[in-house]
């Protein structure tokens, strides 16, 4: 894992230094006095990150120094489950998050939270206890919704679909 990690870290900081900073950190045409420009700090940090990434990569190439750069064994984190299965599970979770964000403007915060909670309970494998799952999935977001809207006056999005239906 050490070599791949070194490459990833170097590439990430490299992209920030060479692509993101020139694009998204504009230098003002006039800088008063001796004030350092706004891109000085991000550049310094990215450069340091790139050097650290290269160091990780270099240390991972030799067996003698590998232990310093790569102290954790990647296999112990992953276990015996095939990588494809892990990627599918991860993909489902990210999809659930993305659908939640999209659903808030349509269904409202409360309903979207209930659906997300059901989805996550299915994904964690707790769905087998259907009655508990259903009670928790409906009651918890409802209680939180009531608490935050009454105690803190939070105004949660109601959702365009529900508004159109007159709910």
């Amino acid at each position, binding site marked *: 894992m050490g070599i791949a990690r070194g490459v990833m870290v170097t590439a990430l900081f490299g992209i920030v230094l060479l692509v993101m900073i020139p694009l998204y950190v*504009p230098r003002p045409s006039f800088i008063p006095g001796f004030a350092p420009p706004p891109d000085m700090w991000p550049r310094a940090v990215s450069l340091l990150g790139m050097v650290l990434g290269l160091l990780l990569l270099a240390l991972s190439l030799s067996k003698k120094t590998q232990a310093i750069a790569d102290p954790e064994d990647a296999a112990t984190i992953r276990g015996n489950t095939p990588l494809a299965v892990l990627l599918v*599970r991860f993909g489902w979770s990210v999809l659930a998050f993305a659908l939640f*964000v999209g659903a808030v403007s349509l269904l409202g915060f409360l309903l979207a939270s209930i659906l997300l909670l059901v989805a996550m309970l299915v994904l964690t494998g707790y769905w087998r206890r259907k009655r508990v799952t259903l009670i928790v999935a409906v009651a918890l977001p409802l209680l939180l*919704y009531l608490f935050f809207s009454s105690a803190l006056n939070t105004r949660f999005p109601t959702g365009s679909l529900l508004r159109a239906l007159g709910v």
Partner: protein
Amino acid sequence: MLNDLLIAFQAVATIENFLIMAAGIWGGVIIGAIPGMTGTMAVTLALPFTFYMQPIPSILLLVALYKGSTYGGSVSAILIKTPGTASAACTTLDGYPLARQGKAGKALNMALYSSCTGDFISNISLIFIAAPLALLALRIGPPEYFMLMVFALTTVAGVSGRSLLLGLVSACLGLLLATVGEDMYGSFRFDLTVDMQGGLAVAPVLIGLFAIPELLKIVVFRNTETQQAMQLGDNKVTRAELRRSIKSMLKGSMIGVVMGAIPGIGPSAAAFSSYGEAQRTSKQRDNFGKGEVEGIAASESANNGCCGSTMIPLLALGVPGDVITGVMLGAFMIHGMTPGPMLFETNLNEVYMLFIGMLFSSVLLFGAGKATMRFFSHISRIPPGLMAPIVLVLCLFGIFSISNSMYDVIVLLAMGVFGFFMFLLAIPAAPFLIAFILGPMLEENLRRALAISRGDPSILVSSPITWLFASLAVFVVVITIRQQLKKAKA
């Protein structure tokens, strides 16, 4: 002074004041334990109620809420690996592994003992060394601040993972993320969307980084142990464990007192610095990060050690050290008291009453912590497969309620996915968080120092204080590399 303190004692020791402080402590513990709800929120929400109260009880209520929420943050950090406050992030390192071993009660007990010890020492220091510490804090300029934060970051990077290099990579990632938004001179950086011009708030980043990856771990790896409830089992802190931790507790309290007295540094950096120091000197150093009570003692004593001392710059100089003390400054002024050197001339009785009230609140914190512990420790009986999605929904509601904006919710979820990648690459999360919190101040002080010196970087090593912090940072790096080389050879 002793006579004044005795008079103040008589004035504070009323049932009404005790009830107000107890309510504040309890409310603070509960709010601090809910992910997404912070001590700042608790103090801000309580501020309007203080308009109708006498000056001292109202300040005591706010102080009690602050102290309660600081301890409460550790409850969720230990039980569900979701620090209720940023300062409790360090407590997750040993608290959560201990809870997973079925020793949640032990972890909560140690957190409570250390919090109360740190808090008490902090209050005593407030009484006796407020003025000299405040004067010292005044001598700290931009170069000294910069070096102090470099030292704090190096310590965190060195202790929170198994590799200093990975810790430094994590810190760089945090520093970079902290540059998103408007800088000190009004330039916008990395503003990919309009929302990003305001930067990223600490709460969604903190909770996303610590809570969401736990859920993703359960979903992706689906270990059999995640479907089972944790056992409460071993609840008591043994005498041997207490004796072993007392040194770290006292040292942590002192670190908290000193770092709390410096405006802006805050309890998060104090907790990690204290943890680093405890790990460096402990005989059990190999057990740190795996469920070591000494680690909890070091972190909790330091973050509560800041509670009293953050009042030092506020009372002695009229300078609030953080957002909470900023709100308290408002409370003082609402009641016609202006914090600063003149406060000790014009309102000496009130100042002493505040000191005594704060000492009482340490005792009340112990009582409230013990009383709520039994209730909170039942949370550990909920299977993680059910608990993690519940925590997710709690976080979503809590984060949305802070700013009434979906932007923070998106940041929370995105940080969760990012935190999971960091876990897969074995990059520790703690240096990232501390770098993210300290990043804006680190940059601001560096740029200020360079502006003062007209671009000459030698200003960063121009005073004895900068030399002290720089040497300490180098010392930490050398010691950590030596320890890691030793381990690699073994």
